[in-house]
């Protein structure tokens, strides 16, 4: 029963973040599954994709329906993003010491400060 409540909450919070910010669903779901549900890492990652895919489709429909869409921009991003995704999965094992996480963590914080305090 307790585990069920955890599942309801984790699912709900993942959905809120993914819908509200258009991202971050996986960042919330994967650590929540491994930490609170004791799911194995690779299973948590695979399951997260199966969960976030329908959530993203529904959120996309709501955004598109309201006119928040730029198809031309989206198409350009899709192509380059998929090529990048392929490269990323191939070089994954070359960066395991956390240096990349550190670099991107610093980048995210810098971008965050800019987005909060500057136009």
């Amino acid at each position, binding site marked *: 029963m307790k585990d069920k409540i955890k599942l309801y909450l984790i699912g709900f919070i993942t959905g809120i973040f993914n819908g509200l910010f258009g991202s971050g669903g996986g960042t919330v779901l994967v650590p929540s599954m491994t930490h609170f549900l004791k799911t194995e890492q690779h299973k948590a990652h695979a*399951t997260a994709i199966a969960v976030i895919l329908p959530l993203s489709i529904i959120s996309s429909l709501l955004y598109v329906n309201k006119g928040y869409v730029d198809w031309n921009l989206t198409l350009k991003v899709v192509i380059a993003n998929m090529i*990048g995704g392929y490269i990323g999965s191939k070089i994954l094992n070359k960066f395991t010491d956390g*240096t990349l996480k550190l670099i991107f*963590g*610093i980048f995210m*914080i810098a971008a965050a400060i800019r987005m909060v305090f500057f136009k």
Partner: protein
Amino acid sequence: MIIYLISLISGIISGMGIGGGTILIPGLIIFLNVKQQIAQSVNLLIFVPTGIIALYSHIKQGNIEKESLSILIIFGIIGSIIGSFIAIFINSNLLRKLFGIFLFLMGAYEIYCSIISKKNKKNSLCKDETKIP
């Protein structure tokens, strides 16, 4: 050109399991002046083809945790409808600031996990990208 560069980098990052949206959304907003909601919709839409391909390979490998899947999806959908409605109806400057706070927390989380992994410690809250296929 900058669009392709930002997208390529965010794709590489998401392929490595860090979460490409955290790079793509601020990249589009800071360098291309895209409205917050539009940048978010781009990220949601691009996940659909990428997600389908990734999901197909995970199903084939049998990595999906089936017991918890349906509850996570049902409650996730409820959350995503509420979240999307808030995003659609609030002012884009306010949404950008809220996203900034969320991005700050995610950045702090990545830095925390990088320190954990440099010390060769294990922490169940941190993603271990070596195990992600």
